[in-house]
């Protein structure tokens, strides 16, 4: 298991070298996190499974997608799966709003929810601390999965401004979450 920094580094190096065991171990290590990330974007268990499997398959077919310079393997995998999920969501012909998807979602008893409501409140509080313009731009990107072009059109602001707001907002919110005692 990639529990210690040394283990994580060795796993990352082997993953970068496209070692089969490293792909298997990385998946086992982060399976629930990756599935949760996909589920939280897609709101559907079957689609989330397809998304994670496809993302791993795509990485397995791309020998140089991850390099040591990228840093955290875990964060790289989270973003790969999340981007795959957002891309899928955009491709869906039906565009249900989040609330409608949640209302239509069947209860899946076999998947125990292990999230902590207090942790989710921390995210909400961190978002609330952002200036209005950054919160709007970052919220549309993170929660709605919109592209920067769509966000610029929706907020009626230049693309460059939107890029800056999202970039600044992301750094601030991560710093805020990292500094108020949270532990990933």
């Amino acid at each position: 298991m990639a529990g210690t920094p040394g283990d994580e580094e060795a796993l990352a190096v082997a993953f970068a070298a496209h070692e089969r065991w490293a792909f298997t171990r990385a998946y086992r290590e982060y399976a629930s996190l990756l599935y949760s990330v996909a589920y939280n974007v897609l709101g559907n268990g079957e689609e989330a499974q397809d998304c994670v499997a496809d993302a791993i398959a795509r990485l397995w077919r791309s020998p140089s997608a991850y390099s040591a310079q990228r840093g955290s393997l875990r964060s790289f995998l989270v973003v790969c799966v999340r981007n795959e999920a957002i891309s899928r969501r955009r491709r869906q012909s039906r565009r249900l709003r989040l609330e409608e998807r949640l209302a239509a979602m069947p209860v899946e008893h076999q998947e125990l929810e292990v999230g902590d409501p207090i942790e989710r409140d921390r995210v909400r509080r961190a978002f609330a601390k952002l200036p209005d313009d950054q919160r709007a731009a970052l919220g549309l990107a993170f929660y709605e999965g919109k592209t920067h072009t769509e966000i610029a059109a929706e907020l009626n602001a230049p693309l460059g401004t939107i890029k800056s707001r999202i970039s600044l907002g992301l750094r601030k919110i991560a710093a805020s979450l990292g500094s108020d005692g949270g532990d990933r």
Partner: protein
Amino acid sequence: MNDAHAGERAALYALGALDDAESAAMEGHLRVCAECAKLVGEAERDVDTIASLETRRRAPDELTKRVERLLAPASRQRASWPRFAAIAAAFVIGVLPSVYLWERNAAMRDAMLSQSAAMDRLATSEHRTASFRPTSEALAANVMYAPDGSWYVIVVRGASHALQVAWMHDGAQTMLGVAVPHGRVAMLYLPKSHRMEQLALMDGPRVVAEAQLP
């Protein structure tokens, strides 16, 4: 920074706020630009911080089995023979050539992007050359590098599999990247911002060659 570099688009990429074409272009660039890979890596950590605090669910066993099948060596996969034979025939006739070509094309594209950047540097910039001292006679490797340490090109001949490239400094090893063989030669292009005086080729934990860069 020119248009190819990530800049503020690092955050957009990590958040999934680029469209599919922009994301694909960014992924291609990240394979050849270590500085942007680092920048995007930092944005990925930020997104991970937020995403990790959202609702967690346990990965279904079905998904785990599916991924393990995907990553398992082909010889370990079991199927009843008639069904296996039918699938195998269809696979050989229809799917295998396209998957093979797709994988070959993706690998070739990655290699060409990296080699293109390396060749451009070698053709247009003043550089020095140092040889690696290998522990095996089958291996031969050189490093070409800018005198100011702004880029390095590592070329390895005779490697049967991927080797890691490490910077040896102050009694420590910092992994820089992986030289993956395409044919008989493996090449790795490393844009850097600092001078490195000793590099090593690693096969797992074992140093197989070292080079001093005067």
